[in-house]
Protein backbone atom coordinates (compact mmCIF):
# COMPACT_ATOMS: atom_id res chain seq x y z
CA UNK A 1 0.00 0.00 0.00
CA UNK A 2 0.97 3.64 -0.38
CA UNK A 3 1.39 5.85 2.68
CA UNK A 4 -1.98 7.42 1.81
CA UNK A 5 -3.74 4.06 1.68
CA UNK A 6 -2.17 3.03 5.00
CA UNK A 7 -3.31 6.17 6.80
CA UNK A 8 -6.83 5.87 5.39
CA UNK A 9 -7.05 2.17 6.30
CA UNK A 10 -5.94 2.90 9.86
CA UNK A 11 -8.60 5.61 10.27
CA UNK A 12 -11.35 3.47 8.78
CA UNK A 13 -10.53 0.56 11.12
CA UNK A 14 -9.45 -1.65 8.23
CA UNK A 15 -6.36 -3.74 7.54
CA UNK A 16 -6.20 -2.60 3.93
CA UNK A 17 -7.99 -0.34 1.44
CA UNK A 18 -7.99 -0.12 -2.35
CA UNK A 19 -8.19 2.98 -4.54
CA UNK A 20 -11.80 3.64 -5.49
CA UNK A 21 -13.16 2.11 -2.29
CA UNK A 22 -15.56 4.20 -0.18
CA UNK A 23 -14.69 4.39 3.49
CA UNK A 24 -15.96 6.15 6.56
CA UNK A 25 -12.98 7.58 8.41
CA UNK A 26 -12.50 9.25 11.79
CA UNK A 27 -10.18 12.29 11.66
CA UNK A 28 -7.58 13.18 14.31
CA UNK A 29 -7.96 16.89 13.65
CA UNK A 30 -10.62 19.04 11.99
CA UNK A 31 -9.81 22.60 10.92
CA UNK A 32 -12.24 25.42 10.32
CA UNK A 33 -11.23 28.95 9.31
CA UNK A 34 -13.27 32.12 9.90
CA UNK A 35 -15.36 31.76 6.74
CA UNK A 36 -15.88 28.02 6.68
CA UNK A 37 -16.63 27.85 10.40
CA UNK A 38 -19.24 30.59 10.05
CA UNK A 39 -20.83 28.61 7.23
CA UNK A 40 -20.62 25.37 9.20
CA UNK A 41 -22.26 26.89 12.30
CA UNK A 42 -25.37 27.68 10.25
CA UNK A 43 -25.43 24.15 8.84
CA UNK A 44 -24.88 22.58 12.30
CA UNK A 45 -28.02 24.37 13.48
CA UNK A 46 -29.99 22.91 10.57
CA UNK A 47 -28.52 19.50 11.39
CA UNK A 48 -29.74 19.83 14.96
CA UNK A 49 -26.20 19.27 16.27
CA UNK A 50 -25.85 21.16 19.54
CA UNK A 51 -22.34 19.87 20.40
CA UNK A 52 -19.26 19.12 18.34
CA UNK A 53 -17.95 15.55 18.40
CA UNK A 54 -14.77 16.38 20.37
CA UNK A 55 -13.56 19.92 21.10
CA UNK A 56 -9.96 18.68 21.56
CA UNK A 57 -9.81 17.49 17.94
CA UNK A 58 -10.88 20.80 16.47
CA UNK A 59 -8.81 23.85 15.54
CA UNK A 60 -10.49 27.12 14.58
CA UNK A 61 -8.24 29.68 12.90
CA UNK A 62 -9.05 33.23 11.84
CA UNK A 63 -7.32 34.04 8.56
CA UNK A 64 -9.41 35.23 5.63
CA UNK A 65 -11.04 38.42 6.88
CA UNK A 66 -9.08 39.14 10.07
CA UNK A 67 -8.65 41.78 11.48
CA UNK A 68 -12.29 42.42 10.62
CA UNK A 69 -12.21 44.10 7.22
CA UNK A 70 -15.72 45.53 7.46
CA UNK A 71 -18.88 45.41 9.58
CA UNK A 72 -20.11 42.22 7.97
CA UNK A 73 -16.77 40.54 8.77
CA UNK A 74 -16.83 41.85 12.33
CA UNK A 75 -20.26 40.34 12.92
CA UNK A 76 -19.19 37.06 11.33
CA UNK A 77 -16.07 36.83 13.53
CA UNK A 78 -18.12 37.74 16.59
CA UNK A 79 -20.53 34.89 15.90
CA UNK A 80 -17.71 32.38 15.48
CA UNK A 81 -16.00 33.53 18.72
CA UNK A 82 -19.16 33.03 20.66
CA UNK A 83 -19.71 29.55 19.21
CA UNK A 84 -16.09 28.56 19.94
CA UNK A 85 -16.59 29.58 23.58
CA UNK A 86 -19.87 27.67 23.87
CA UNK A 87 -18.27 24.55 22.42
CA UNK A 88 -15.19 24.74 24.66
CA UNK A 89 -12.72 24.60 21.75
CA UNK A 90 -9.20 25.31 23.06
CA UNK A 91 -7.27 25.33 19.81
CA UNK A 92 -8.62 28.72 18.80
CA UNK A 93 -6.45 31.22 16.97
CA UNK A 94 -8.18 34.57 17.35
CA UNK A 95 -6.62 37.98 16.70
CA UNK A 96 -3.26 38.13 18.42
CA UNK A 97 -2.63 34.40 17.86
CA UNK A 98 -4.07 34.33 14.36
CA UNK A 99 -2.53 33.47 11.03
CA UNK A 100 -3.23 31.36 7.99
CA UNK A 101 -4.61 28.02 9.13
CA UNK A 102 -2.41 25.93 6.86
CA UNK A 103 0.69 27.37 8.47
CA UNK A 104 -0.67 27.51 12.05
CA UNK A 105 -1.59 23.82 12.29
CA UNK A 106 1.87 22.40 11.48
CA UNK A 107 3.61 25.23 13.39
CA UNK A 108 1.57 24.59 16.55
CA UNK A 109 2.08 20.82 16.40
CA UNK A 110 -1.59 20.14 15.61
CA UNK A 111 -0.87 18.43 12.28
CA UNK A 112 1.26 15.33 12.82
CA UNK A 113 2.61 12.34 10.87
CA UNK A 114 0.06 9.61 10.22
CA UNK A 115 -2.87 11.89 11.08
CA UNK A 116 -6.06 12.14 9.11
CA UNK A 117 -7.00 15.80 8.91
CA UNK A 118 -10.09 17.36 7.38
CA UNK A 119 -10.01 21.09 6.78
CA UNK A 120 -12.71 23.51 5.75
CA UNK A 121 -10.52 25.07 3.06
CA UNK A 122 -9.18 23.78 -0.23
CA UNK A 123 -5.52 24.22 0.74
CA UNK A 124 -5.88 21.82 3.67
CA UNK A 125 -3.76 19.48 1.54
CA UNK A 126 -0.79 21.48 2.96
CA UNK A 127 -0.56 19.27 6.09
CA UNK A 128 0.57 16.36 3.93
CA UNK A 129 4.05 17.85 4.29
CA UNK A 130 4.32 16.29 7.76
CA UNK A 131 3.28 12.86 6.45
CA UNK A 132 -0.43 13.21 7.22
CA UNK A 133 -3.40 12.54 4.95
CA UNK A 134 -5.21 15.80 4.70
CA UNK A 135 -7.85 17.18 2.39
CA UNK A 136 -10.15 20.14 2.02
CA UNK A 137 -13.95 20.20 2.15
CA UNK A 138 -16.73 22.78 1.94
CA UNK A 139 -18.63 24.07 4.95
CA UNK A 140 -21.51 21.57 4.77
CA UNK A 141 -19.02 18.68 4.86
CA UNK A 142 -17.18 20.52 7.62
CA UNK A 143 -20.41 20.71 9.63
CA UNK A 144 -21.02 17.01 9.04
CA UNK A 145 -17.61 16.02 10.37
CA UNK A 146 -17.87 18.45 13.31
CA UNK A 147 -21.19 16.83 14.25
CA UNK A 148 -20.36 13.16 13.69
CA UNK A 149 -16.56 12.96 13.97
CA UNK A 150 -16.52 10.98 10.75
CA UNK A 151 -16.54 11.56 7.03
CA UNK A 152 -16.99 9.47 3.89
CA UNK A 153 -14.01 9.43 1.58
CA UNK A 154 -13.19 7.69 -1.66
CA UNK A 155 -9.72 6.19 -1.38
CA UNK A 156 -7.69 8.05 -4.00
CA UNK A 157 -5.22 6.42 -6.35
CA UNK A 158 -1.72 7.84 -5.91
CA UNK A 159 0.56 9.65 -8.33
CA UNK A 160 4.28 9.50 -7.64
CA UNK A 161 6.47 12.50 -8.48
CA UNK A 162 10.19 11.94 -7.99
CA UNK A 163 12.66 14.82 -7.94
CA UNK A 164 16.30 14.21 -8.93
CA UNK A 165 19.39 16.39 -8.99
CA UNK A 166 20.50 19.44 -7.02
CA UNK A 167 18.68 22.70 -6.45
CA UNK A 168 20.37 25.73 -7.93
CA UNK A 169 20.52 29.10 -6.15
CA UNK A 170 17.08 30.68 -5.59
CA UNK A 171 15.27 27.50 -6.58
CA UNK A 172 12.61 26.61 -4.04
CA UNK A 173 9.78 24.16 -3.40
CA UNK A 174 7.57 26.63 -5.28
CA UNK A 175 9.54 26.07 -8.47
CA UNK A 176 9.33 22.29 -8.14
CA UNK A 177 5.57 22.32 -7.65
CA UNK A 178 4.97 24.92 -10.39
CA UNK A 179 7.00 22.78 -12.79
CA UNK A 180 4.95 19.76 -11.72
CA UNK A 181 1.60 21.52 -12.23
CA UNK A 182 2.85 22.95 -15.53
CA UNK A 183 3.58 19.43 -16.69
CA UNK A 184 0.47 17.59 -15.51
CA UNK A 185 -2.11 20.44 -15.77
CA UNK A 186 -4.73 21.75 -13.36
CA UNK A 187 -6.67 18.50 -13.48
CA UNK A 188 -3.60 16.27 -13.82
CA UNK A 189 -4.15 14.80 -10.36
CA UNK A 190 -7.96 15.06 -10.23
CA UNK A 191 -9.38 12.89 -7.39
CA UNK A 192 -5.86 11.58 -6.71
CA UNK A 193 -3.17 11.74 -4.00
CA UNK A 194 0.15 13.28 -5.01
CA UNK A 195 3.16 11.69 -3.35
CA UNK A 196 6.38 13.72 -3.55
CA UNK A 197 9.72 11.96 -3.13
CA UNK A 198 13.24 11.50 -4.45
CA UNK A 199 16.81 12.54 -3.65
CA UNK A 200 16.22 16.25 -4.39
CA UNK A 201 13.09 16.30 -2.26
CA UNK A 202 14.93 14.72 0.66
CA UNK A 203 17.22 17.76 0.80
CA UNK A 204 14.27 20.15 1.19
CA UNK A 205 13.32 21.56 4.58
CA UNK A 206 9.78 21.60 5.93
CA UNK A 207 9.04 25.05 4.55
CA UNK A 208 9.61 23.88 0.96
CA UNK A 209 7.63 20.68 1.52
CA UNK A 210 4.72 22.68 2.92
CA UNK A 211 4.72 24.83 -0.22
CA UNK A 212 4.67 21.77 -2.45
CA UNK A 213 1.85 19.98 -0.65
CA UNK A 214 -0.06 23.28 -0.44
CA UNK A 215 -0.34 23.43 -4.21
CA UNK A 216 -1.40 19.80 -4.80
CA UNK A 217 -4.95 21.16 -5.14
CA UNK A 218 -3.75 23.34 -8.02
CA UNK A 219 -3.26 20.12 -9.97
CA UNK A 220 -6.73 18.97 -8.86
CA UNK A 221 -5.21 16.68 -6.23
CA UNK A 222 -7.19 15.44 -3.26
CA UNK A 223 -4.06 15.50 -1.14
CA UNK A 224 -0.31 15.91 -1.30
CA UNK A 225 2.09 13.98 0.90
CA UNK A 226 5.75 13.59 1.76
CA UNK A 227 6.61 10.48 3.76
CA UNK A 228 8.25 11.37 7.10
CA UNK A 229 12.04 11.36 7.30
CA UNK A 230 14.55 12.88 9.73
CA UNK A 231 13.69 16.40 8.50
CA UNK A 232 10.02 15.80 9.32
CA UNK A 233 10.68 14.20 12.67
CA UNK A 234 13.00 16.88 13.97
CA UNK A 235 10.38 19.48 12.98
CA UNK A 236 7.59 17.52 14.64
CA UNK A 237 9.46 16.60 17.84
CA UNK A 238 9.80 20.28 18.77
CA UNK A 239 6.11 21.01 18.60
CA UNK A 240 3.90 17.90 18.72
CA UNK A 241 0.88 18.16 20.99
CA UNK A 242 0.09 14.41 20.81
CA UNK A 243 1.77 11.13 19.86
CA UNK A 244 2.02 10.34 16.15
CA UNK A 245 2.58 7.40 13.79
CA UNK A 246 5.02 7.17 10.90
CA UNK A 247 3.83 5.40 7.75
CA UNK A 248 5.84 4.73 4.59
CA UNK A 249 4.79 3.50 1.16
CA UNK A 250 5.65 -0.15 0.51
CA UNK A 251 8.18 -0.88 -2.23
CA UNK A 252 5.42 -2.64 -4.20
CA UNK A 253 2.82 0.12 -3.67
CA UNK A 254 0.78 0.88 -6.79
CA UNK A 255 0.66 4.25 -8.55
CA UNK A 256 -1.56 5.33 -11.45
CA UNK A 257 1.16 7.57 -12.81
CA UNK A 258 4.83 8.23 -12.13
CA UNK A 259 6.66 11.40 -13.09
CA UNK A 260 10.36 12.16 -12.84
CA UNK A 261 11.77 15.67 -12.61
CA UNK A 262 15.40 16.64 -13.10
CA UNK A 263 16.06 19.71 -10.99
CA UNK A 264 19.70 20.44 -11.81
CA UNK A 265 19.86 23.60 -13.91
CA UNK A 266 16.18 24.46 -13.38
CA UNK A 267 15.32 28.17 -13.69
CA UNK A 268 12.86 29.84 -11.31
CA UNK A 269 9.36 29.09 -12.57
CA UNK A 270 6.52 31.58 -13.09
CA UNK A 271 2.82 30.82 -13.68
CA UNK A 272 1.36 33.37 -16.07
CA UNK A 273 -2.26 34.59 -15.96
CA UNK A 274 -4.82 33.04 -15.75
CA UNK A 275 -3.97 29.57 -14.51
CA UNK A 276 -1.41 27.98 -12.17
CA UNK A 277 -0.50 25.47 -14.90
CA UNK A 278 0.48 28.22 -17.37
CA UNK A 279 4.11 27.84 -16.29
CA UNK A 280 7.28 29.21 -17.96
CA UNK A 281 10.88 29.87 -16.83
CA UNK A 282 11.21 33.36 -15.35
CA UNK A 283 13.35 34.50 -18.28
CA UNK A 284 10.40 34.22 -20.66
CA UNK A 285 8.40 36.86 -18.78
CA UNK A 286 11.28 38.96 -17.41
CA UNK A 287 10.66 42.67 -17.97
CA UNK A 288 6.86 42.50 -17.56
CA UNK A 289 5.99 45.75 -15.70
CA UNK A 290 4.31 45.31 -12.31
CA UNK A 291 1.93 47.50 -10.33
CA UNK A 292 2.19 45.33 -7.23
CA UNK A 293 4.28 42.57 -5.70
CA UNK A 294 2.63 40.47 -3.01
CA UNK A 295 4.74 38.35 -0.66
CA UNK A 296 2.20 36.45 1.37
CA UNK A 297 -0.34 33.57 1.55
CA UNK A 298 -0.27 30.02 2.88
CA UNK A 299 2.10 29.10 0.04
CA UNK A 300 5.05 31.43 0.61
CA UNK A 301 4.94 33.63 3.71
CA UNK A 302 6.72 31.31 6.13
CA UNK A 303 9.78 32.44 8.05
CA UNK A 304 12.13 30.82 5.52
CA UNK A 305 10.30 32.57 2.67
CA UNK A 306 10.60 35.94 4.41
CA UNK A 307 14.30 35.35 5.10
CA UNK A 308 14.94 34.74 1.42
CA UNK A 309 12.99 37.82 0.37
CA UNK A 310 14.86 39.88 2.99
CA UNK A 311 18.23 38.63 1.74
CA UNK A 312 17.43 40.17 -1.63
CA UNK A 313 15.72 43.33 -0.35
CA UNK A 314 18.31 44.18 2.32
CA UNK A 315 19.53 47.74 1.75
CA UNK A 316 17.46 48.10 -1.41
CA UNK A 317 14.22 49.87 -2.29
CA UNK A 318 11.15 48.66 -4.07
CA UNK A 319 10.75 50.37 -7.43
CA UNK A 320 8.88 53.68 -7.25
CA UNK A 321 6.10 52.49 -9.56
CA UNK A 322 5.54 49.19 -7.80
CA UNK A 323 3.73 48.61 -4.51
CA UNK A 324 5.27 45.93 -2.31
CA UNK A 325 3.00 44.21 0.20
CA UNK A 326 4.43 41.73 2.71
CA UNK A 327 2.11 39.65 4.91
CA UNK A 328 3.74 37.07 7.20
CA UNK A 329 1.66 33.89 7.44
CA UNK A 330 1.27 33.64 11.21
CA UNK A 331 1.66 35.63 14.41
CA UNK A 332 4.62 33.46 15.47
CA UNK A 333 6.32 34.11 12.12
CA UNK A 334 5.57 37.85 12.40
CA UNK A 335 7.17 37.99 15.84
CA UNK A 336 10.17 35.98 14.71
CA UNK A 337 10.58 38.19 11.63
CA UNK A 338 10.52 41.21 13.92
CA UNK A 339 13.25 39.77 16.16
CA UNK A 340 15.41 38.81 13.19
CA UNK A 341 15.13 42.30 11.70
CA UNK A 342 13.30 41.09 8.61
CA UNK A 343 10.36 43.45 9.08
CA UNK A 344 12.78 46.36 9.30
CA UNK A 345 14.38 45.35 6.01
CA UNK A 346 10.94 45.23 4.36
CA UNK A 347 9.89 48.55 5.87
CA UNK A 348 13.09 50.23 4.73
CA UNK A 349 12.57 48.82 1.26
CA UNK A 350 9.27 50.69 1.18
CA UNK A 351 7.00 47.70 1.73
CA UNK A 352 3.59 47.83 3.38
CA UNK A 353 3.92 45.13 6.05
CA UNK A 354 0.66 43.81 7.46
CA UNK A 355 -0.45 41.63 10.33
CA UNK A 356 -1.00 37.99 9.24
CA UNK A 357 -4.07 37.44 7.04
CA UNK A 358 -5.03 35.91 3.70
CA UNK A 359 -5.88 39.41 2.48
CA UNK A 360 -4.71 40.07 -1.04
CA UNK A 361 -4.40 36.36 -1.91
CA UNK A 362 -8.13 35.97 -2.57
CA UNK A 363 -8.82 39.59 -3.49
CA UNK A 364 -10.45 40.08 -0.13
CA UNK A 365 -8.64 43.11 1.30
CA UNK A 366 -5.15 44.49 2.09
CA UNK A 367 -3.92 44.67 -1.49
CA UNK A 368 -6.86 44.13 -3.86
CA UNK A 369 -6.03 44.80 -7.55
CA UNK A 370 -7.82 47.41 -9.66
CA UNK A 371 -8.84 47.21 -13.32
CA UNK A 372 -5.96 46.23 -15.61
CA UNK A 373 -3.37 46.09 -12.82
CA UNK A 374 -0.57 43.54 -12.95
CA UNK A 375 0.75 41.77 -9.86
CA UNK A 376 3.42 39.20 -9.11
CA UNK A 377 2.35 37.12 -6.14
CA UNK A 378 3.90 34.33 -4.07
CA UNK A 379 0.42 32.80 -3.64
CA UNK A 380 -1.09 29.81 -5.38
CA UNK A 381 -3.90 30.88 -7.74
CA UNK A 382 -4.11 33.42 -10.54
CA UNK A 383 -7.54 32.78 -12.04
CA UNK A 384 -9.55 35.64 -13.55
CA UNK A 385 -10.64 37.96 -10.74
CA UNK A 386 -8.77 36.01 -8.06
CA UNK A 387 -6.94 39.02 -6.63
CA UNK A 388 -9.44 41.71 -7.53
CA UNK A 389 -10.84 43.16 -10.75
CA UNK A 390 -11.53 40.62 -13.54
CA UNK A 391 -9.13 42.45 -15.86
CA UNK A 392 -6.27 42.42 -13.32
CA UNK A 393 -3.50 39.90 -13.94
CA UNK A 394 -1.40 37.87 -11.51
CA UNK A 395 1.83 36.01 -12.03
CA UNK A 396 2.86 33.39 -9.44
CA UNK A 397 6.47 32.87 -8.38
CA UNK A 398 8.75 32.13 -5.44
CA UNK A 399 9.66 34.81 -2.84
CA UNK A 400 13.14 35.40 -4.31
CA UNK A 401 11.66 36.25 -7.71
CA UNK A 402 9.05 38.40 -5.95
CA UNK A 403 11.67 40.39 -4.04
CA UNK A 404 13.83 40.90 -7.13
CA UNK A 405 10.80 41.92 -9.18
CA UNK A 406 9.78 44.48 -6.55
CA UNK A 407 13.20 46.11 -6.82
CA UNK A 408 13.19 46.18 -10.62
CA UNK A 409 9.51 47.12 -10.96
CA UNK A 410 9.09 44.33 -13.45
CA UNK A 411 9.41 40.56 -13.40
CA UNK A 412 13.07 39.74 -12.76
CA UNK A 413 15.25 36.77 -11.89
CA UNK A 414 16.93 37.10 -8.47
CA UNK A 415 20.46 37.30 -9.86
CA UNK A 416 19.53 40.44 -11.82
CA UNK A 417 19.47 42.55 -8.65
CA UNK A 418 22.47 41.15 -6.79
Amino acid at each position, binding site marked *: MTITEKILAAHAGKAAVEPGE*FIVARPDMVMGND*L*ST*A*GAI*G*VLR*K*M*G*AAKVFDPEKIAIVFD*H*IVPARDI*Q*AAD*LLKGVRQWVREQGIRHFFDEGRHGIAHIILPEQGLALPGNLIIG*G*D*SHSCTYGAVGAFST*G*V*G*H*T*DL*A*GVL*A*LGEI*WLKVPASIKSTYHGTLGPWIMGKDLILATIGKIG*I*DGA*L*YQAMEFRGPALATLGMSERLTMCNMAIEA*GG*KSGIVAPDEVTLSYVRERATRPWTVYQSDPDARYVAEYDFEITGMRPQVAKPF*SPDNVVPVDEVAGTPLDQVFIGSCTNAKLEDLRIAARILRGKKAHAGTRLIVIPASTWIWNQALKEGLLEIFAEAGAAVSTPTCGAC*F*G*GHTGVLGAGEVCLSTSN*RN*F*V*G*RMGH*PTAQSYLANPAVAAASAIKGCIAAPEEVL
Partner: protein
Amino acid sequence: MIRGRVWKFGDDVNTDVIMPGKYLAMHDPAEIAPYIMEGIDPDFGKKAKPGDIIVAGKNFGCGSSRETAPGGLKAFGIGAIIAPTFARIFLRNAVNIGLPVLECPAAAADIREGDVVAVEMATGRITDETTGRTYQASPFPPFLQELIAAGGLIPYVRRRLGVA
Protein backbone atom coordinates in the same frame (compact mmCIF):
# COMPACT_ATOMS: atom_id res chain seq x y z
CA MET B 1 -37.40 15.28 -14.15
CA ILE B 2 -35.24 18.37 -14.70
CA ARG B 3 -35.74 20.24 -17.97
CA GLY B 4 -34.17 23.46 -19.16
CA ARG B 5 -32.28 25.55 -21.67
CA VAL B 6 -28.54 24.97 -21.93
CA TRP B 7 -25.73 27.44 -21.32
CA LYS B 8 -22.30 26.19 -22.38
CA PHE B 9 -18.95 26.84 -20.72
CA GLY B 10 -15.40 25.63 -21.39
CA ASP B 11 -12.88 23.54 -19.46
CA ASP B 12 -11.64 24.22 -15.92
CA VAL B 13 -14.32 26.72 -14.90
CA ASN B 14 -13.00 27.72 -11.48
CA THR B 15 -14.75 28.90 -8.33
CA ASP B 16 -13.15 32.36 -8.57
CA VAL B 17 -15.20 33.02 -11.72
CA ILE B 18 -18.31 31.15 -10.56
CA MET B 19 -18.40 33.28 -7.39
CA PRO B 20 -15.65 35.90 -6.95
CA GLY B 21 -13.94 36.21 -3.56
CA LYS B 22 -15.55 39.54 -2.76
CA TYR B 23 -18.83 37.73 -2.06
CA LEU B 24 -17.20 35.20 0.29
CA ALA B 25 -18.46 36.60 3.56
CA MET B 26 -22.08 36.44 2.35
CA HIS B 27 -23.55 33.20 3.55
CA ASP B 28 -27.12 33.77 2.42
CA PRO B 29 -27.34 31.99 -0.95
CA ALA B 30 -30.21 34.18 -2.12
CA GLU B 31 -28.02 37.25 -1.67
CA ILE B 32 -25.21 35.89 -3.86
CA ALA B 33 -27.38 34.14 -6.49
CA PRO B 34 -27.50 37.12 -8.91
CA TYR B 35 -23.69 37.10 -9.23
CA ILE B 36 -23.15 33.54 -10.47
CA MET B 37 -20.60 33.13 -13.27
CA GLU B 38 -19.81 36.84 -12.95
CA GLY B 39 -16.11 36.25 -13.65
CA ILE B 40 -16.88 34.78 -17.10
CA ASP B 41 -20.03 36.64 -18.07
CA PRO B 42 -21.12 39.56 -15.87
CA ASP B 43 -24.61 39.40 -17.43
CA PHE B 44 -25.18 35.69 -16.86
CA GLY B 45 -27.37 36.32 -13.82
CA LYS B 46 -29.65 38.48 -15.99
CA LYS B 47 -29.71 36.24 -19.08
CA ALA B 48 -30.19 32.86 -17.44
CA LYS B 49 -33.44 31.71 -15.87
CA PRO B 50 -34.17 29.38 -13.00
CA GLY B 51 -34.32 25.83 -14.34
CA ASP B 52 -31.62 26.41 -16.97
CA ILE B 53 -28.90 23.80 -17.31
CA ILE B 54 -25.13 24.35 -17.44
CA VAL B 55 -23.07 22.12 -19.74
CA ALA B 56 -19.34 22.58 -19.30
CA GLY B 57 -15.91 21.12 -20.03
CA LYS B 58 -13.66 19.06 -17.76
CA ASN B 59 -12.81 19.85 -14.13
CA PHE B 60 -15.81 22.11 -13.48
CA GLY B 61 -15.59 23.95 -10.15
CA CYS B 62 -11.84 23.73 -9.65
CA GLY B 63 -10.09 25.98 -7.15
CA SER B 64 -11.36 26.89 -3.72
CA SER B 65 -13.70 25.01 -1.39
CA ARG B 66 -16.14 27.94 -1.18
CA GLU B 67 -19.69 26.72 -1.04
CA THR B 68 -20.88 30.07 -2.29
CA ALA B 69 -20.07 28.59 -5.74
CA PRO B 70 -22.46 25.59 -5.80
CA GLY B 71 -24.67 27.37 -3.25
CA GLY B 72 -25.10 30.39 -5.53
CA LEU B 73 -25.85 28.16 -8.55
CA LYS B 74 -28.43 26.25 -6.56
CA ALA B 75 -30.03 29.37 -5.08
CA PHE B 76 -30.27 30.86 -8.57
CA GLY B 77 -32.16 27.75 -9.58
CA ILE B 78 -29.70 26.15 -12.02
CA GLY B 79 -31.41 22.83 -12.78
CA ALA B 80 -28.34 20.69 -13.30
CA ILE B 81 -24.71 20.79 -14.37
CA ILE B 82 -23.34 18.32 -16.90
CA ALA B 83 -19.56 17.99 -17.39
CA PRO B 84 -17.03 15.25 -18.22
CA THR B 85 -15.47 15.67 -14.74
CA PHE B 86 -15.92 17.89 -11.71
CA ALA B 87 -13.28 19.14 -9.29
CA ARG B 88 -13.61 16.94 -6.23
CA ILE B 89 -14.48 19.51 -3.56
CA PHE B 90 -17.09 21.05 -5.87
CA LEU B 91 -18.58 17.59 -6.49
CA ARG B 92 -18.80 16.84 -2.75
CA ASN B 93 -20.31 20.25 -2.03
CA ALA B 94 -22.88 19.87 -4.81
CA VAL B 95 -23.97 16.44 -3.60
CA ASN B 96 -24.09 17.65 0.00
CA ILE B 97 -26.37 20.58 -0.76
CA GLY B 98 -28.50 18.83 -3.38
CA LEU B 99 -27.32 20.59 -6.56
CA PRO B 100 -27.73 18.01 -9.37
CA VAL B 101 -24.42 17.25 -11.12
CA LEU B 102 -23.79 14.61 -13.78
CA GLU B 103 -20.51 13.33 -15.21
CA CYS B 104 -20.99 12.54 -18.91
CA PRO B 105 -18.21 13.26 -21.43
CA ALA B 106 -20.36 12.50 -24.52
CA ALA B 107 -23.23 14.78 -23.50
CA ALA B 108 -20.82 17.53 -22.49
CA ALA B 109 -19.17 17.37 -25.92
CA ASP B 110 -22.34 17.17 -28.07
CA ILE B 111 -24.94 19.37 -26.44
CA ARG B 112 -25.03 22.91 -27.83
CA GLU B 113 -25.86 26.24 -26.25
CA GLY B 114 -29.59 26.90 -26.46
CA ASP B 115 -30.60 23.24 -26.70
CA VAL B 116 -33.38 22.09 -24.40
CA VAL B 117 -32.25 19.18 -22.27
CA ALA B 118 -34.08 16.85 -19.90
CA VAL B 119 -32.28 15.06 -17.07
CA GLU B 120 -33.42 12.17 -14.89
CA MET B 121 -31.28 12.14 -11.77
CA ALA B 122 -32.36 8.69 -10.55
CA THR B 123 -31.17 6.97 -13.73
CA GLY B 124 -28.58 9.44 -15.00
CA ARG B 125 -30.37 9.63 -18.34
CA ILE B 126 -29.83 12.84 -20.31
CA THR B 127 -32.02 13.69 -23.34
CA ASP B 128 -31.24 16.53 -25.71
CA GLU B 129 -34.77 17.34 -26.85
CA THR B 130 -33.48 19.69 -29.55
CA THR B 131 -31.44 17.00 -31.32
CA GLY B 132 -33.30 13.96 -30.01
CA ARG B 133 -30.07 12.33 -28.78
CA THR B 134 -29.85 10.55 -25.44
CA TYR B 135 -26.88 9.98 -23.15
CA GLN B 136 -26.11 7.99 -20.02
CA ALA B 137 -24.18 9.71 -17.20
CA SER B 138 -21.77 7.68 -15.08
CA PRO B 139 -23.85 6.36 -12.18
CA PHE B 140 -22.97 7.51 -8.67
CA PRO B 141 -21.85 4.70 -6.34
CA PRO B 142 -24.63 3.40 -4.02
CA PHE B 143 -23.08 5.26 -1.10
CA LEU B 144 -23.56 8.63 -2.79
CA GLN B 145 -26.96 7.69 -4.23
CA GLU B 146 -28.16 7.17 -0.66
CA LEU B 147 -26.89 10.59 0.36
CA ILE B 148 -28.54 12.17 -2.68
CA ALA B 149 -31.79 10.31 -2.02
CA ALA B 150 -31.73 11.51 1.60
CA GLY B 151 -31.73 15.07 0.24
CA GLY B 152 -28.07 15.86 0.98
CA LEU B 153 -25.88 15.89 4.04
CA ILE B 154 -28.14 17.90 6.38
CA PRO B 155 -31.01 15.36 6.47
CA TYR B 156 -28.46 12.54 6.53
CA VAL B 157 -26.74 13.90 9.65
CA ARG B 158 -30.10 14.67 11.31
CA ARG B 159 -31.04 11.04 10.88
CA ARG B 160 -27.69 9.86 12.23
CA LEU B 161 -28.03 12.12 15.26
CA GLY B 162 -31.58 10.92 15.81
CA VAL B 163 -32.95 14.45 15.47
CA ALA B 164 -36.58 14.37 14.39
